[in-house]
């Protein structure tokens, strides 16, 4: 893929904020035959000047955000609370229609939640009245896929929870619940996985384990991932691209490419380049936060 050029070429891969789609197509056009390039150039998700305004609270949560996300990209939306990153994710999921602008999923305008986008929520999103297995089998059942229980059992095995398939969610720990949530979102084999601070409510140790777990799951299915977080290290560790957002109104401040090779292990967090990138992103966030304080 053109995006992942040389793992060490940090400066060259730094992209300007809100790359217009045309520029991105040109960027992707570098490799492969023309046909292959055209297929690859169709972004999986494309946000075109999306603005979300909550009139009841007179708040512009997201203003003029344009973003293209290619198939298989792992993108982190990073920013302080109130920067509209979760709202932006809800727009991509079809939960919240944008006030202006359009979201395209595989080139088609998105108007309602689609089974093409699996969503993992921060917490308490498992159906408490269903066992872990039935939670995961929910999507396959609704879509009429054959043998939903077998699909669910296999996914629970994948996330290491095969033994507690018949447990109620309330009897599982927070980390286990989130793993069931990830399995549930993956059960319909969606090409896109939208994750809204999925590890935000977990303790630091569980969180770190879950990040590694997520990368290994991602490596197996290779969905396009949009991952919302306010944790800079988490964003750099997981993603190929970190989109930094600013608040009031929510906009894209800057985008960073993260060309660490995969598979990644936690030891890259000690890498000098990792630390440098972390400092760079922290500076941007601090600058933006200071602006909105005035």
């Amino acid at each position, binding site marked *: 893929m053109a995006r992942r050029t040389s793992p060490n070429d940090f400066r060259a891969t730094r992209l300007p904020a809100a790359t217009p789609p045309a520029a991105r197509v040109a960027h992707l056009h570098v490799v492969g035959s023309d046909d292959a390039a055209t297929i690859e150039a169709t972004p999986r998700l494309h946000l075109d000047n999306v603005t979300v305004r909550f009139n009841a609270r007179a708040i512009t949560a997201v203003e003029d955000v344009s973003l293209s996300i290619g198939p298989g990209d792992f993108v982190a939306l990073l920013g302080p609370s109130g920067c509209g990153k979760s709202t932006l994710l*809800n727009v991509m*999921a*079809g*939960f919240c229609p944008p006030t202006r602008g359009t979201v395209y999923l595989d080139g088609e305008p998105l108007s*309602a*939640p*689609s*089974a093409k*986008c*699996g*969503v993992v*929520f921060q917490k*308490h*999103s498992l*159906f*408490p*009245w*269903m066992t872990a297995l039935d939670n995961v089998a*929910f*999507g396959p059942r*609704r*879509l009429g896929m054959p043998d939903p229980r077998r699909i669910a059992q296999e996914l629970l095995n994948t996330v290491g929870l095969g033994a507690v398939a018949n*447990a*109620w*969610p*309330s*009897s599982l720990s927070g980390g286990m619940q989130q793993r069931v949530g990830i399995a*549930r*979102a993956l*059960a*319909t084999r969606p090409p896109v996985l939208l994750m809204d601070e999925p590890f935000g409510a977990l303790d630091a140790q569980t969180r770190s384990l879950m990040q590694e777990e997520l990368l290994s799951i991602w490596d197996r299915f290779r969905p396009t991932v949009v991952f919302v977080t306010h944790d800079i290290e988490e964003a750099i560790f997981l993603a190929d691209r970190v989109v930094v957002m600013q608040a009031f109104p929510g906009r894209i401040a800057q985008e960073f490419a993260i060309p660490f090779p995969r598979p990644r292990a936690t030891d890259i967090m000690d890498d000098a380049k990792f630390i440098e990138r972390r400092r760079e992103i922290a500076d941007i966030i601090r600058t933006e936060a200071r602006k909105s304080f005035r």
Partner: protein
Amino acid sequence: MKGILRRYASTGSALLLGTAGLAIFTGLWALAAAKLNNEVLLPSPLAVLSTYAELLTDGSLLGDVRASIFRVFAGFFIASGIAVPLALILAYSRVLRGLVMPLIALIRPIPPIAWIPLAILWMGLGDPPSYFITSIAAFFPIFLNAFAGGTSLQHEHVNAARSLGAGPGALLVTVMLPSALPMIVTGLRIGLGQAWMAVVTAELIAAQSGLGYMIQISRLSLETPRVLVGMTVIGLLGAVMIGALGVLERRVIVPWNHPH
């Protein structure tokens, strides 16, 4: 294994304590009755027991119990059949909610007993006014809890279900109803208790059979042991039914709220 043993042990000790409490109470009662020595003011537990035997053998107690239970269930089912659907519809429709809720707020403080004159005027004496009174009494706890259950629906659950391909019908059956169910069952349990209290009130005034009626005529003839038989039967039956509904709730209806 150990866990099962411990559970048996704790059930056993609870039974023991409960029995001891009842025994102490009965002993105090027997003592007071012996001291007072007045069958009309306070009959002894033994006198009540022998009246139990007498009323059981002549079959009148069973007849009264049957009449009261039937009224309780009639009122309870009428109330649930109206309260649960109405509460869920109001929970999901803002316009209907605005239209109906003020009316409900005004009717709710009226005690069931205040409806008795109207009930007798409209329906005469006998079963219908008793159904009416018990259903009024059961309606409000069922309605209010079911309404709270309907409004406690979580956005995350709806969004998760929609992103997994659930349409409006599937949303109603697989998300909205089960998420309201725990509160609905709580309402049903309270409603059943209210129906038991109301059936006695209704029978005291508007009926010619049942435990409430039996208590009333026994009072007039100063047969206090019979009054106490009626009272204790009501307590016993109410406790058994509410307990059974509780077991049903934990094991069958909302097992996810009571894991283990």
